[in-house]
């Protein structure tokens, strides 16, 4: 009996500091944000009404969903291609693939966004080359628009899609693939009818992670969109610091959390968390 009691005490003492810290520094202030959404500037449901009627808010929501959908499809497809080589290539191929995945992963979002500005801007590398070879006479508008945002976000999110895909591909049994080839199936056919379906959980996990991340993206759209292609996170920033329309910023945050929460609940119905690491 005594040891049972001291066990519970020990667990409580060890777990309490972090739990207390997060309740005080995260959960409690989040409730404060929820309160803002109902009280600023006037008490009531006005801010949530505005979400449903305000044209600007709606167009930003729709743009965010559209960009997130495109980014998800492109990043998961690109990540799939490089993960195949990372997991199943020769040792040299695997080393190169690992380098190309991990180096960008560890470099800050600002540096990466800046790199894309350097490549895509009017006086950047791509436009300089295209003009030098006489392919275009005027620089192409590659950045400060939705195209730039999609390119930058895809670049940021590919490594995040790689990890769930890699874990699905590692657990795949080679003999099934060899059997398909042995029975006369072509490489293409083996890939589409055996390999891809067997990594489905990884594809779902990767798509969900990329989509959820895209919804809350802030830095890349703000820099590569140049204020013209505003996404939902930047709208919150502008509402807090430029309007200061704290109530609406808070209401958008609450809706975003509910939406992401619903998506995560859906994700965990189909994929076990362990498969994502």
């Amino acid at each position, binding site marked *: 009996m005594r040891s049972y009691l001291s*066990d*519970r005490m*020990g*667990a*409580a*003492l*060890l*777990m309490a*500091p*972090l*739990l207390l*810290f*997060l309740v005080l520094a*995260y959960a*409690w*202030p*989040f409730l*404060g*944000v929820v309160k803002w959404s109902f009280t600023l500037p006037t008490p009531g449901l006005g801010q949530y009404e505005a979400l449903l009627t305000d044209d600007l808010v709606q167009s930003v929501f729709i743009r965010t969903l559209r960009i997130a959908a495109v980014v998800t499809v492109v990043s998961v497809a*690109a990540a799939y291609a*490089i993960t*195949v080589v990372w997991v199943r*290539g020769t040792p040299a191929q695997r080393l190169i693939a690992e380098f*190309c995945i*991990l*180096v*960008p992963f560890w*470099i*800050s979002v*600002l*540096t*990466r*966004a*800046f*790199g*894309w*500005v*350097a*490549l895509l*801007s009017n*006086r*950047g*590398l791509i436009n300089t080359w295209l003009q030098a070879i006489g392919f275009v006479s005027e620089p192409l508008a590659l950045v400060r628009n939705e195209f730039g945002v999609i390119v930058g976000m895809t*670049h940021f999110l*590919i490594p995040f899609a790689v990890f769930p895909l890699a874990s699905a591909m590692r657990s795949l049994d*080679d003999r099934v693939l060899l059997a398909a080839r042995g029975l006369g199936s072509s*490489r293409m056919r083996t890939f589409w009818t055996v390999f891809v379906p067997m990594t489905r959980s990884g594809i779902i996990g990767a798509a969900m992670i990329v989509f*959820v991340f895209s*919804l*809350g993206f*802030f*830095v890349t759209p703000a*820099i590569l969109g140049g204020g013209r292609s505003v996404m939902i996170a930047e709208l*919150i*920033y502008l509402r*807090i610091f430029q309007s200061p329309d704290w109530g609406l910023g808070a209401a958008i*945050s609450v809706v*975003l*959390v509910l939406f*992401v929460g619903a998506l995560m609940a859906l994700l965990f119905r189909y994929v076990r968390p362990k498969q994502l690491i």
Partner: protein
Amino acid sequence: MPTYRPGPVSLIIAAFVALFLLMPLLAVIPVSLTPSRMLAMPSGELSLRHYRALIEDPRWLQSILLSIRIGIVSSAFSTVLALCFSLGVWMFQPRFTAALVGFVLLPMVVPPVVSAITLYFLLTSISGFSSFFGYDTWLGVAMAHSVMTVPFATVLILVSLSQLDRRIDLAARGLGATVWERATRIIMPNIKFGIVTAALLSFVLSWEEIGVTLFITSVNAITLPRLMWMGLRDNIDPAIAALSVILIIITVLVLAVRSLVVRQRGGH
């Protein structure tokens, strides 16, 4: 070892993806060497003026020192909290463990902009009572960064604990070791690689944190990413290209050392 290798089509597509991933990192090199004061490709001659600007403008050094200080404090704080919590979970396996771990992981899953507005609410409330802790103070930033890094530290430490053989702890317990002795003399030495990794990752995440930092600083607590942001937003300053090249070189070196260490340890 897989015996089923990717075919030529896969290799060609993967090569394009690899190129795409490296391109923006390579693009900053020529920009950092341009003699122009604006963002442009060097045409003909090269110049190191933007590297010199980094040394001569004291704001860069100040923000680097501030970022290091905030990174060390928030990394130490979040690693200690995460370690205690994970030890509690592993040693006692209390009821509702899944719910408690889920709660701790929230700041990792919630969109960063929502965490940012939450921490903005917290720090502006604290500012009402205190002038050295709250909105736009370095302690306030360090605490906000701790909230953001603690889930990552917890995940890493829980993963290394899950690879530990429970029987060594049971043996120590059977021989009469106290909870404190089990934690510090049996368990922690066995997961020290995980603890160090957690502290390092927390530091790196704090060092490059910008989404939350933007909301909770204005003129005093200007971290390095915050200063880069200002240079990127207003007019694009090629000094950022020079800084980016230095950061990329450091990253590649650290990753190379890490992979050598991992290889020598025979891990994965």
